[in-house]
Structure formats: C-alpha cells, structure tokens
C-alpha cells in the first residue's frame, strides 16, 4: 500500500502541470464556496438584529381573518391535546405603531424560551434596543398613556420596543382580546433538518419553500417570510449560494476529466501492477487517497483565498453595503471547504475509475443525474413555485446542454469531411489538422468544453438578467423620481410644519408629503404609505390619473406574497379597499400598500409626514432652507438620487460577476488541462510534422486552431443556453426570490462581456506553454491509449 501510494505521488511529480491544474481548479472552487459562506455569515450576523431576541426560536407565524384571543386559546387547547404535531410552543403577538416606533407585545410565559426575558416587566414597561438612543427609566408617549423604558437590551432593532402583551394592547388602545398573529416554534424533525441545511447553506429554507407546518384554517407564514427584510436577504443568500456552487460543479468536471486522463496515462503501469497481484480495489483506493490529498491541500488554499475574496467583496454586497460586520472563521467554513473539496475530488475520481474499469458502467451515474435533474427541472419550472425549483430548471437546461456536447462534436466531425468544410480546408493544412484534432477526441474534450459552456452560459445569463434589470430599474426611477428635492426624516418625525414653510418659499411649486405606518396582513409586516393623490402623483405609480379615493396601490412584492391582483379587495381596519394597481418596487424589500391621505385618516392613521418631495425652480435654495430649518434631515436632489441608485445597483452585482468569473477561470484551467493531454497524445504526429518541415511556429498554429475550434464550439452551445438561463432568471428566479418580474431585454451588450471572456480564456489557454516535462511515466507512448473508445 505504501509503495502504491508513493508510486502515485511520484506520478503527480512527473505530471506537475496537470496536478497543478487540479490544485488550482479545486482551490478556486473552494474559494468560491468560502467567499459565499463568509459573505453570507456577515449578512446573517447583520440580519440577526432584524428579529427581536424575544422572538428567537419562533419559526412560523399563524394568522387568519378576524383573529381574536379566543382563536389563540382554542389553538392552544388543540396543541395541548397533541393535534399540532411538531409544535413545541405557541405565543400570541400584538404589534402596532406608537409615536416612538413599532411596538411588539408578546406573552413572556407562553412557552417560547426567549420570550422569558420579558418576565420581570411590570405593566407599562418596555424594552428598547441599546442602539435606540434611549435610556433606562425614560418615559415615552403611547396612545394609551406613557411607557417606561425598563432597560436596554442588545440586539433589539433601534426602532422597535418590545413589551408584555397586555402593555402593548393598552398602549395601542386595543382590547385584551386583540391579537395580530400567533408565533409558533416548530421542532419537527424536518424543521431541524432545514435549520441544519440553513446553516450549511444560508438562505436554503427560502429557496425550497417547503412548509413544515400546515394547520387547516390558518395562514402559515415562515417567520423569515413575515419579516420582508429577512425574506429578501435570505433569497439573496440562496442566489449567491447557488452561484457559488457553479465553480464547484465546473471543478468537479475538471477533476473527473483529469482523473480519466491520468488513469489512461498510467494504464501501462497499472497493468503491470495488476500483473504483480495488486487488486483493482487497492489501486482505486490509492488513486482516490491521493486525490483526497490534493483535495485537502486545495481546501486549505481555498479557505485562505476565499476569506480574502470575501473581505474584498463584502463591502459592496447587495443591500448591505453600509457596514457588514466581520466574522471569524468557524467550523462550518471548514466543513464546507473541506467537504466540497473532498467531495469534488473523490466523486470525480471515483466516476473516472468506474469509467476506465467499465466504460459502459461508468455512464450510468451521469445518466441518472441528468435524468433526475431533467425531471426536477420540469417539475420545478411548471409545478413547483419555489426558488429551488427555478434553479432545478436552470440546472436541467445546463445538463441537457452537457449531454448534447458529444453529439454536437460528433456532428461537427461528420461535417468536417464534407464539402461544406472545404473552405476551412482550403485555408491550409494546419487549420485542418488543428480542427480535426479537436473533433477526433470528443470523449474527453467534451467534458472540458462542457465546463466552459456552463461558465460562459452563466455569464451570458447573468449579463442578460442584469441588463434587463437595469433597464427596468431605470424606467422605474424615471417614473418614480419626478420631484426636484427629497427630504427624509426619522420615522416618528412630523415634517408638516417644515412642509408649510417650504411651500411658502419663492419658486417652490409643490410640496408633496408622505407618511407611513406599520400594519400586519396575513402575518406579514406591511408598510402603509399615504399621501395626497392627484394625477401627477398617480403617474408615479403608473396610473393614468389619480388614485381614486377608497382604492389602494400595492407593491408587486406584496401582491405576489398575498396573491393579489388589480380589482381584488384588501381589508384594512374593517374597511375594504379595491386594488387600483400593482406597482414595481425593484430593490425594495418592504411590502407596501399606498393610500390617499383621506383614506388613511378614515382608517385611523395619524397623518404625520416624515418625508417630503419638492418641486422647485431653485433646488439649491430649497436644500439650504431645509438645512437651516432642520439640519438633521437627509436631503437629496433628483440627480443625486438617480446616480446613487444606479451606483448601488451596479455594486449589487459585483459579487455575482466575481463568482461567475471564478467559474470561468476554473473552466479555462480545465480546458488547458484537456488540451495539454491532447498535445501529449499528438506528440508522435508533431514529430511527423516536424520531419515534414513544419516550424515550431506552425505547430503552435495547429494548437491555436484547435483552441479556436474549442472556443467556437463552446460559444455555439453557451449562447443559446445562456439565453434560456437568462430567461429563467428574469421570468422565474426573480419573481420567486424577490417578488418582482423583469422583462428580458436582448441587448447586444449582454453578449459582449461573455464573448470577450471566452476569447480571452481561449487566448490565455492557447498561448500557455505546454511543457514537455508533463509527459509523465510512459510518456506519449503510454498515452497512446489516451482517447479510448471515442
């Protein structure tokens, strides 16, 4: 065993370039996984403060129309009777807005352990966050009197006050029968598995849309879904995780391909070892053991590179660009890095061993995988509305393309001997030789081409999606950002007086006031916005005229979450509001419902306005006037808002571009490796060409033609696949992940970057040296068996 191991290690030394390509490819793939993990952890840490600590552990929220405490007690009785399987605690929740912010009331003794932190609160006492700017003992106003800040607690969002449920009901002027939702702690085995998978891949639960709780007659909402920011962020994390895995898939193809090549190059040695009595199992074990060693080395390097990469990318992470907390290297990171590297190496190596032992048997795992993915993709696209289903459809499209590659190469091979290709032939013997070498080895090159196709197609798809998104986003900005100056106050501020003063300034033609309040619909927190509507304001939301009184506008995300459409009726404080229109809110995680001022007053909202929009001839004068009257307010002019929004938009996709680039690099490394092996195989032919008088430059030209052929073939397949994936991203992934739909725009620019990337990769691979020392044991002679049954 020791001798066999040394023999294999010696082979790695004799084949340094292909060994290095494996190390590099797997390292880059691991770094992709590590970078996504580290960025995700930073996001998770920053999101932790979104959930009040008193609700920690609550996995779902229950709601239904006309919810009262009687419903809660009945449900508790059913739970105690054992009817709600997997539920370990229930907790009543009352929430609403007081002048000081959002007030959340829960029953400390309901059985949710985290809520016990409220147990010592006396009536009229509340907890505030350490970052709220409040002090213990301070009294704050509420509708039902005043509340005392009992103490400050870490982790509580700054705008949130948490208190006992009775105190909340009194402060909100509601009866002790009032109830907004029921928090549920589910500890079913499936929930535990999902929690674990969420740790392994942040955002996983947002992706699968799998409901672990179903109670007839109740609307069940995952806790994360009830908090729009959380739901949005987890979808982002899932998308990042999926994209981060791309490099891993490409690396797996690389390892498989290299393993096949290595096994063939060692065929003679292995044959001798078998003749000496070494069993097949031992040979395979040693081979896999050495691949494992490479995987472990790669995982270590990948951790270092990925952590560095994460640090660079975190600052421009989408939606969290302000101040992402730093995170330490944890055991999950090691688990993911080592696990993915080992998995890629062992599975790739094992499949290669199987294929070499029995070419027919070696194909069944692939067939099984692609058939399974095909079924999952069709199901995910047509029948399953989850994010995971959407990604399954993308994976299925990718796998279908991979499966088609050998057939495409076979078709090109047949074309190569037909008259249609005479044009190429006429360009010279060298081109013909180069292209023929590419086409005559489809069994091996197809894996490298497949990896490149996947990376390129993803790049095309991402570019298509981003460009489409940007066009829609700009259209939204054009529609929505119509005023000259924007003033934003704190949530509990009232800018009415300032609005009156601004209105009196010379050159100010209009001051539009905006207010908002929090409400809960079907377990989801919704911001109810209100303003005075006219035709111009209606136009901001895509209406032809004003918003008729008694009607409401809803954001696309809210409409999707609650399955609402124009004409549907939404009930607010016992009043019915038909939905006039659904408006887009790209980049906005908040669920929004917009009313006219008069309707807001009718449902009892206090008409306090914390934001203003001003039309003025003299923008600078208005900005100066606001700065003088209220220096703490945030003031922006239209041009700066637009520029800032687009800047954030572009930063948002920096991570996705980086991850795609990583996958592309890994694919290029794989391609280089395949070409390197091909070059070694062709050494006898090269010697023949040399003896016929070709120069080294002409021999390099042969290689260049081969690379161009590979690049063109990859592009031929990647472009349509990228188009399909781009459509899936716009029409399936975005609505499922974020609640907004995008119109796919086929801008030429979307293809430029991926094509340039492909050409650059080809150029690098074509110009890269193909070292003679890579001949390895047996050299080209042993490599004669390289291509096998093509």
């Amino acid at each position, binding site marked *: 065993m020791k001798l066999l191991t040394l023999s294999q290690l010696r082979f790695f030394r004799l084949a340094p370039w292909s060994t290095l390509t494996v190390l590099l490819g797997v390292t880059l793939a691991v770094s992709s996984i590590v970078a996504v993990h580290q960025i995700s952890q930073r996001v998770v840490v920053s999101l932790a403060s979104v959930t009040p600590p008193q609700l920690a552990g609550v996995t779902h929220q229950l709601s239904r129309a006309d919810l009262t405490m009687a419903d809660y*007690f009945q449900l*508790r*009785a059913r739970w105690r009777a054992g009817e709600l399987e997997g539920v370990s605690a229930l907790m009543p929740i009352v929430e609403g807005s007081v002048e000081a912010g959002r007030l959340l009331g829960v029953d400390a003794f309901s059985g949710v352990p985290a809520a*016990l932190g409220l*147990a010592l609160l*006396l*009536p009229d006492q509340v907890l505030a966050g350490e970052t709220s700017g409040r002090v213990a003992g301070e009294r704050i106003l509420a509708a039902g009197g005043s509340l005392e800040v009992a103490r400050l607690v870490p982790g509580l969002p700054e705008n949130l006050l948490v208190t006992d449920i009775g105190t909340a009901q009194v402060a909100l002027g509601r*009866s*002790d029968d009032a109830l907004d939702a029921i928090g549920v702690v589910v500890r079913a085995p499936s929930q535990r598995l999902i929690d674990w998978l969420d740790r392994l891949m942040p955002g996983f639960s947002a992706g699968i849309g799998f409901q672990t709780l179903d109670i007839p007659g109740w609307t069940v909402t995952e806790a994360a879904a009830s908090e729009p920011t959380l739901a949005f962020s987890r979808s982002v994390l899932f998308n990042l995780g999926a994209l981060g895995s791309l490099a891993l898939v490409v690396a797996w193809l690389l390892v498989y391909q290299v393993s096949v090549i290595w096994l063939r190059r060692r065929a003679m040695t292995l044959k001798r070892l078998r003749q000496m009595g070494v069993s097949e199992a031992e040979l395979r074990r040693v081979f896999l053991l050495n691949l494992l060693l490479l995987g472990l080395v790669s995982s270590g390097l990948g951790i270092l590179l990925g952590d560095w990469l994460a640090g660079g990318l975190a600052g421009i992470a989408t939606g969290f660009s302000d101040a992402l907390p730093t995170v330490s290297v944890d055991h999950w990171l090691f688990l993911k890095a080592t696990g993915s590297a080992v998995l890629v190496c062992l599975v790739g190596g094992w499949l290669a061993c199987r294929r070499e032992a029995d070419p027919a048997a070696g194909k069944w795992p692939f067939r099984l995988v692609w058939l399974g993915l095909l079924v999952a993709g069709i199901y995910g696209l047509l029948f399953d509305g989850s994010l995971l289903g959407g990604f399954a459809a993308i994976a299925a499209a990718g796998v279908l393309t991979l499966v088609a590659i050998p057939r495409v190469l076979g078709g090109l091979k047949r074309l190569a001997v037909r008259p249609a290709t005479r044009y190429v032939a006429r360009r010279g013997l060298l081109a013909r030789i180069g292209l023929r070498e590419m086409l005559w080895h489809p069994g091996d090159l197809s894996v490298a081409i497949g990896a490149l196709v996947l990376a390129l197609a993803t790049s095309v798809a991402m570019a298509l999606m981003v460009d489409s998104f940007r066009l829609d986003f700009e259209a939204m900005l054009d529609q929505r950002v119509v005023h000259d100056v924007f003033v934003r106050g704190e949530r509990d501020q009232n800018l009415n007086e300032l609005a009156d003063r601004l209105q009196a300034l010379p050159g100010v033609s209009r001051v539009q006031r905006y207010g908002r309040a929090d409400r809960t619909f079907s377990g989801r927190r919704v911001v109810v916005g209100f303003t005075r509507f006219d035709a111009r304001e209606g136009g901001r939301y895509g209406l032809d005229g004003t918003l008729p009184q008694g009607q409401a506008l809803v954001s696309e995300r809210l409409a999707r979450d609650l399955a609402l459409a124009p004409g549907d009726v939404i009930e607010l404080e016992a009043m019915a509001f038909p939905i006039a229109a659904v408006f887009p809110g790209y980049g906005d995680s908040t669920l929004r419902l917009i009313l006219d001022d008069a309707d807001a007053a009718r449902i009892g909202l206090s008409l306090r306005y914390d934001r203003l929009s001003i039309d003025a001839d003299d923008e600078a004068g208005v900005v100066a006037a606001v700065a003088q009257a209220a220096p703490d307010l945030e003031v922006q002019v239209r041009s700066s808002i637009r520029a800032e929004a687009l800047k954030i938009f572009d930063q948002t996709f920096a991570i996705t571009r980086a991850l795609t680039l990583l996958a592309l690099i890994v694919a290029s490394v794989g391609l280089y490796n395949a070409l390197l092996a091909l070059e070694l195989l062709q050494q006898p032919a090269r010697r023949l060409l040399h003896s016929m008088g070709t120069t080294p430059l002409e021999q390099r030209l042969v290689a260049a033609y081969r690379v161009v052929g590979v690049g063109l073939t990859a592009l031929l397949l990647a472009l349509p696949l990228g188009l399909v994936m781009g459509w899936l991203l716009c029409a399936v992934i975005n609505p499922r992940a974020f609640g907004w739909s995008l119109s796919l725009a086929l801008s030429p620019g979307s293809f430029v970057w991926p094509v340039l990337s492909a050409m650059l990769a080809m150029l690098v691979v074509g110009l890269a040296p193909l070292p003679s020392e890579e001949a390895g044991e047996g050299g080209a002679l042993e490599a004669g068996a390289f291509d096998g049954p093509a």
Partner: protein
Amino acid sequence: MVRLEQVSLGRARLRLASLVMAMLAQFGCAETPDESPLSGGQLRLGSVLGETALAGFARADAPRRFEFPADHGPHPAFRSEWWYLTLVLADESGRDVGVQFTLFRQALSAADIPADNRWQSNQIYLAHFAVTDTATGVHQADERFARGHPSLVGVRAEPFRLWLEDWRLEEVGEVWRLQADAGEARVEIDLDMAVRIVLQGESGLSRKGPGQASYYYSMPGIPAAGRIWMDGEPRAVRGLGWLDREWSTSLLSDGQVGWDWFALQLDDGRRLMAFQLRRRDGARDPYDQGMLVGADGVARPLEASDFTLLPTRYWRDSDGTDWPVAWRIRLGQEVLDVVAVLDDQRMATSIRYWEGMVAVLDDEGRRLGQGYLELTGYDGAVDE
C-alpha cells in the same frame, strides 16, 4: 380534627427558591457569574429581589385561623404560594409508579393592576409534572409557565379547581382528580381528600428565621387511585398522595448551598418528613427538622439532634454531577435505608434538581415503605 404540628421550613424555601431561580435563570438579570442567583448552587435571592420588591405584600408574621376549603385557594396578598402533590403508587402487577405535580404562584408586584386587561395580571405561574415508572424504567418530566390569565391558569377554592391549561387538579364529586401529561406519560388519578390536615409550625405559622415565616399546612396519606398511560395503554394504579400548601412573602437567607428533603409513607402507617439544609460552612442548619406522624395520627416533631441523614451511594450523571440516590436515615435506634427506584430522576426543567420516588428498606433490605426525595444544589462531582 386538626392537629397542630411543628414542622420544618426548609421545603418552603426550596420551592420558593426554585420558582424564582427558574425565572431568573432565563431573565439574564445577573451581569456576572458571581452575581448569578445560581452561582455555586447558592440561593442568593436577596441579591436579585431587593426588599422593595416585598413592599405592599402581606407578611406571615403571626398565627392565623385557617379556614377550609377557602385556604385551599390562592392568597394573592402574599408574594409566593404553591400547591405541591406527590404520589407513591403501584400498578396491578405491583410495579411502582411515582407522580409529582406542583403549581407555583409568584406575584411580580404588589401593585393593583387595572382589571380591564386580563393579560396585565401580575401573577405568574409555573407548574412541574413528572412520572416515574419502574415498569418501563422511565422518568418523564415537563414544566409549564403561564401568566394569571383566566383562560390559561388559576386556582379556585370552592369547588376546588387548579388548572394550567389542560393540567388540572380539581374537585369532581367526592374526590379531587389530577389530570396531567408529559410527553408520552399521562395520568388520571382520583384523590380522596378526606384526610387529616396538619398545620405546620406554630399553628400553621412556619418560622424561617428572624422575621421570616410562611403559612404552611400538609395533607399526607391521601388515598389515591386511577390510571396511568406510559406507552398508550392505560394501567390501573393505587397508592398514597401527599399535598403540601404554603404561602409567604419571605426570602431565603445566605449561606445555604442546597437541601435534601424526604417525605416517606411507611407501610405501617407512619409518615416521616425530614430534611437537611446543606450550608456552605458545613455546619448543620438549626432549621433542619422533621416530623414523624404515627399510625395513630399522633405527630412528633423532630429536631436536628433526633435524626441523621447520610448518603450511601452517588449516581453520576452525564454532566459529571454526583447525586446521592441512596441514604441511611437514623431515627433514634431505627435505621431506614432510602433508595431511589430509578437513579436518573432529574427534572428536565428550567431548574436543575433531582426529585423522585424512593423505596424505604430496613437494614436487611426488606421493604418498609415508599416516598419522595428532593435534592438541590448539587452541581459538581463528589471528591472520592
């Protein structure tokens, strides 16, 4: 006829302590380990609940006239109160079954609460329920918290009804019926409450120390019969129950690290309660006491010098804590060996303690009776 007996105060302390500890452990009030009320197993309630918390509550400072059934109900003018029921039972095959059911009440403040919001009760409740089944070798325990919302929890004197959601101890015809469940375990036991009520301490005033006391009565030897479900199938059980009732506003003193408490129902009709408070300084606490009620109903108070409690075997749990699960009690010339029917009868609750069913044997291993043992303040291995 009501008999007045002088009885210990230790058990009252431990139960009050348990309740407050359970919640404080969750509150995160303690800033440092040294300030934790659970630090080193010590009971340092005074450091957490200042005297101001006691202002406005009624105090147990003089003997009072007990009135039944009214005193079976709650006494909200006092800060703390509990209903503590233990049952030693056997099924038709003679296999032992133990049941513990406890409801603690604690007031957060003495201030009057507006009655128009039922959630704003300043009364909070904690219930513990546990079953020890020697047939299956299972000790199943659970706990519940609730605030004093009438739809969740409460106690009523007449007809007697105590409930925390579907855990109930209530008067049904001639008996009180206990219904509770924990995991797979469920019990439905009828209790014949027509037994002697024993007023503890000085006519029911149980002194805890200088200026500290509680009102305290017990009902030992309650005939009990019913059914138990451990694996879905009901089994008939029969045996004896013991109800303790106590309410107070007093606090514990410093210096105690835990206690060992015994309530034994002997087959010859005698009932024995004995406890020792383990002090940090190793000295025997002057309030270590006991009571021996004879088969004829005559009770004899026991002072510390009347008995000794000596652990004879420890069981080490997975956390490395050694629990003394076998004891030798010397009561004058009489020797009683007390052995846990199951070693692991730790309470899987917010409070870390051991409470379980024990068998009472003579020095030759013959059974003399059954009972309950409570152990607190053990959080480390015993030095061998």
